[in-house]
């Protein structure tokens, strides 16, 4: 059991011990880093490949069709076929494009989403880099992706690309605020930014100490999840790449491998945000019987599945709805959630539960009342088609 739990840690140890026999001592720390990086670099594209397969399969089932089923059993080799197709496609750069920026954008979008994986605790003792400021690192790095998307959209010299890029900009900045606010509650209660400490703080009581079971944790989890769906530009928040409005948004002018990199960044982001939500609110790798990394994988899988489910269920937001949802609902909700977490921290147990629940319920009801449900649009006047 213990062996199985620490499988990957032991594997790394064996590799390091084997290397010790012929490598000089000063190189060993670098080798340790290299092994971790290699593990992430293999794991991340594999995840991405099978997430695309999963998404197509699940969406297919939801729409009453089979999804990919030609290549391999259950279409399991489909991602590989897709990869070959992407690699052999012609790489088109628009004539007017800003070549350097156009080339750099896909790179700049993938690197941060790979960096996100370095602070995730995949299992017991399985954080690649146990940073003191892990959570802050996660948020800081994830904010770089916005700029990469802008670079891609601007460098393409295409109005749809630029529109998509500006939409992505506005959306991701707006949703980052409630995202950070929802995370602040966890940091307040745990008193640390390290992802490992956050997981440790949720141990015990047979899973009842997961933060999602507290009032502030539940609201925080919902806020975090909604905002993370928006941060990775997935449906129903996919207005930056809405096909029916602006062709494909910021990656209209990308083809071949560069397009695949944008696609990869989206899926890696979806996975990393789900994993972070599991770490922050669902107890991370903790769970009975099964090995820790499997528990982590299961929780993350459930959240990723929910993201796909959302995509199969909801229509796209309108731009004004999107903005008012972030600023008029999620943002004040995040603020009152911080108040609730503060009260939770400073009052004894049964009272704290009641107070926090009431604060959150009242603010939820109040905010839904204050926000008008049906938006009255101005009467549209047509200038040319009258």
């Amino acid at each position, binding site marked *: 059991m213990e062996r199985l739990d620490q499988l990957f840690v032991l594997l790394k140890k064996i590799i390091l011990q084997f290397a010790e026999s012929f490598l000089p001592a000063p190189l060993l720390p670098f080798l340790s880093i290299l092994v971790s990086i290699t593990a992430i670099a293999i794991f991340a594209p594999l995840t991405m490949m099978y997430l695309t397969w999963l998404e197509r399969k699940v969406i297919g089932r939801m729409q009453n069709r089979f999804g990919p089923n030609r290549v391999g059993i259950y279409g399991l080799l489909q991602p590989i076929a897709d990869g070959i197709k992407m690699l052999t496609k012609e790489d088109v750069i628009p004539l*007017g494009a800003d070549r350097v*920026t156009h080339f750099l954008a896909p790179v700049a979008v993938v690197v941060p989403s790979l960096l996100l994986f370095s602070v995730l605790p995949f299992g017991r003792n399985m954080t690649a880099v146990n*940073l*003191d*400021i892990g959570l*802050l*690192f996660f*948020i*800081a*790095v994830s*904010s*770089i992706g*916005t*700029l990469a998307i*802008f*670079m891609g959209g*601007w460098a393409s*010299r295409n*109005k749809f690309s*630029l529109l998509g890029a*500006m939409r992505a*900009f506005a959306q991701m*900045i707006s949703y*980052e605020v409630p995202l950070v606010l929802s995370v602040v509650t966890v940091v307040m209660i745990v*008193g*640390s*930014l390290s992802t490992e400490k956050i997981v440790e703080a949720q141990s015990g009581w047979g899973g009842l100490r997961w933060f999602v079971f507290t009032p502030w944790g539940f609201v925080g989890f919902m806020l975090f999840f909604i905002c993370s769906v928006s941060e990775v530009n997935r449906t129903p928040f996919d207005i930056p790449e809405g096909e029916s409005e602006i062709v494909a948004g910021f990656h209209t002018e990308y083809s071949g491998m560069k397009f695949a990199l944008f696609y990869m960044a989206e899926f890696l982001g979806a996975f990393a945000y789900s994993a972070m939500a599991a770490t922050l609110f669902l107890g991370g790798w903790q769970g009975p019987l099964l090995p820790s990394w499997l528990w982590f994988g299961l929780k993350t899988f459930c959240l990723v599945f929910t993201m796909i489910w959302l995509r199969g269920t909801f229509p796209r937001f309108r731009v004004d709805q999107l903005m008012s949802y972030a600023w008029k609902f999620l943002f004040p909700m995040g603020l009152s959630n911080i108040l609730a977490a503060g009260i939770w921290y400073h009052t004894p147990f049964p009272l704290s539960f009641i107070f926090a629940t009431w604060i959150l319920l009242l603010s939820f009801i109040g905010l839904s009342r204050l926000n008008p449900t049906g938006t009255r649009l101005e009467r549209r006047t047509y200038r040319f088609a009258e």
Partner: protein
Amino acid sequence: MELFFYLLATLTLLGALGAVLLKNLVHCALSLILFFAGIAGFYILLQAEFIAAVQILIYVGAVATLVLFAIMLTQNVIGETTLKGLGQNRWWALGISLVVITVLVRAIQHQTLPSFLPEGRVTTNEIGHTLVTTYVLPFEVISILLTGAMIGAIVVAMETKKNKQQATGDRRRT
């Protein structure tokens, strides 16, 4: 360590130079981002990881975005947004900058600086505690300043009814 320092220094200086010398405004802003990231690298080198993360979050995540937004709102958005280059006072500016560099570098060279590296690092916990105990007054003042700046920025940049009419009028005319 040394290699890392020189690499970072080159990157940061190139970024800063690009930000003030390039012709295309968006290129300037992108090169400014390189500069911000380089400074964050310096902070990591100096064992100030928390400040480095804050630098990335605020400068790369927010300030650069604001700058790009301002460029998009004030320039011809698509196509060549090249500038007419430098003003007439560039030679004066160059002279002044060179004088500043000489004076500062001379001052640094003639000073006996501490060369001893103390052990131990500053933890995030310590920063947080000091921020709400010893430095609680500056902290509060800063938060008032931020609120004021935010309200001010919104009020200044807000489209009032009058200049909105003006803008639509302009659009009709053209």
